[in-house]
């Protein structure tokens, strides 16, 4: 059906026309729904009408259902906003419009550029790329984000590693702290014992001094004791005869008296 130069196809017909254009004129590969679902998830498979591959690039094609009721700029902007959200996922994103709608009245070229979304138009069975997708820029931005994310991930990993290392170091530090405390205690004891050993040294010096004195005094005592009574161990007592008796034994009447004791 055509109204104001606009031919309204059924959605299936329109997908077929666009698919043929993309395959035949652009040489893009149209991915099946199952492939899309496997590669990008179920939501993408339901939301995006066609997903194509151009070499390494992924291109999302969004085909709004145009009717007389929704034939307005706001309807287009709704789809543009939706398309813009996918520029972070796909390398390019296109919205398919009837050629008659691709006018400044409905489409703001700057806004498309800002959003990086391209436009494919159709008219009387003819399909063409009316506005290129600039999503490569966004893609690069996305790549940047991705790399940033990767970097962040790397950083996170590194941070995690560092955190682990810090945790390990912390545990080591705690151990070291304990060791230091033990060492401090030992040093304190050693310094105490050093002080004590100084005191011991002083005491020992005093003892040695006293021992020398004692040895000297003992020697003196020995010398004195030798004076007191001649020779000891090797002493030999003389057997006293009557003529050699000490004076107190000579002519002592007690000798006679005591010898009679029985």
């Amino acid at each position: 059906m055509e109204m104001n130069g606009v031919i309204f196809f059924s959605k299936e017909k329109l997908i077929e026309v666009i698919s043929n254009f993309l395959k035949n004129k652009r040489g893009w590969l149209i991915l099946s729904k199952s492939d899309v679902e496997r590669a990008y998830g179920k939501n993408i498979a339901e939301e995006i009408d066609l997903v194509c591959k151009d070499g390494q690039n992924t291109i999302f094609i969004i085909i709004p259902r145009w009717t007389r009721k929704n034939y307005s700029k706001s309807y287009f902007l709704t789809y543009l906003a939706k398309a813009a959200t996918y520029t972070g996922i796909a390398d390019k994103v296109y919205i398919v419009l009837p050629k008659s709608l691709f006018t400044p009245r409905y489409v703001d070229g700057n806004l498309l550029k800002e959003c990086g979304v391209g436009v494919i138009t159709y008219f009387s069975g003819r399909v063409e790329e009316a506005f290129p997708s600039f999503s490569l820029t966004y893609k690069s931005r996305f790549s940047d984000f991705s790399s940033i994310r990767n970097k962040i991930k790397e950083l996170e990993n590194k941070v995690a590693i560092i955190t682990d290392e810090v945790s390990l170091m912390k545990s080591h530090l705690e151990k070291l702290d304990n060791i230091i405390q033990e060492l401090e205690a030992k040093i304190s004891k050693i310094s105490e014992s050093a002080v004590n050993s100084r005191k011991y040294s002083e005491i020992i010096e005093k003892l040695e001094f006293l021992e020398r004195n004692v040895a000297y005094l003992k020697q003196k005592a020995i010398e004195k004791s030798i004076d007191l009574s001649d020779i000891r161990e090797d002493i030999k007592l003389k057997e006293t005869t009557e003529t050699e008796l000490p004076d107190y034994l000579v002519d002592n009447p007690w000798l006679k008296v005591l010898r009679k004791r029985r």
Partner: protein
Amino acid sequence: MEVERYKRKYSFGEDYGTRFYKFGPIREKPDIIENAGYFIEDSLIKRLYGIDKDLIVGPEYRDYLGTKEEVQRNLVYPMKDGIIAKEDERAWRVIYEVTKYGLTRYKLMESEFKGYCVTAALSAVAPNYMYEKIFEIHEKIDEETGLVRAVSVIPQPLAVAIANKETKCVVVESGHGNTQICPISLRAISDAIAVLNRGGAEADMITAEILRDAGYADLAREETVVRRIKEMIGLIPIDLDKAIKEAKSDPEKYKVSYRFPGTTIKIELEKEAWMRFLIGEIVFNPSHEIFASYYKRGFAIREGRLGDDILPGEIDLGEAIVRSVEKVSLEIQEEVYRKIILSGGNFMWKVPSGLEDVACGAPTKVRLLLKKFDIEAGVKLTVDPQYAVWKGCIVWSVAVPLDYEWSWEKREGWYKWR
């Protein structure tokens, strides 16, 4: 070797005096050490000196003396007026160590030596348990050293009589703490032994009082100073009243000054010089009325004993001798009065030149005191006062037969355990 020859070679004498222990085998004179022991209470000192015993005897004990307080606590002179209490373990340990010290100094290596025949002299008033302890100690030493073959114990006055070669006499022994009067007739007549609880200590006390009265109260507190002054200034009066009168009328003649060598301590008595006679008089006649004022100051003399009788503390020495001799058989009384032997440091008084008319020696004083009782006594100082007891011990060892077993009844003989 024949027994008598053996004893002549291996006799050993021991005199346990209050101050000194005299010991040794048969010879001219004994060895002397202080009859004292010093207990070492500090284990550090023992380690320091490298000794393992806690009691030191002999001359070396002086090397270990500590503070005055320690000396007071640990220096033990076991004999107190010739007596050691039975339970006084420290004193008996000292006696054991002193005895062992003496015997081991004469340790012999001769093959014929089988131990000494030891005679020990104790105070005339020593009770039986002291004899038992002396035996016990010698037996123990013999077990440890093999140095004692037999022991006998005799009273010191008997030993003095033996050394003086007097078989019938009265020995008056006066030491620091007491005075013993012991009549002897071939043996000590134990029932007649009188003991007066006075001696050199009383003379020291009166000397201290004199020093106080003369203004030397500080010196009066020093025991050694007092003793030295007593020896230097003390005089025995022939008659105290006359001596005092004489000294007071002519103080210049009797004045005395004495300076301790090497010190600044000096005393001078001039107006108080008459008091010098009090020092000698109190030993012989403390009953003189002049001492009444001193007794009022708390100065008292304990009662003495004669057998089971009590003698007044202040009895004069003449009367005490008379009371003692009266216990002896009448037949020998006259004979023993003729031979009174004075022994001990308390009778060693000098008469300064020029004072012979008022001062005298101890024998004269005793003779004068006895004269009051119409007794013409023969009084002399012992021969060799320092060693007489020890010499008597040697004679006893040599003469008493070795087979004469100890008798507790007679308190004679040899105590043996081998």
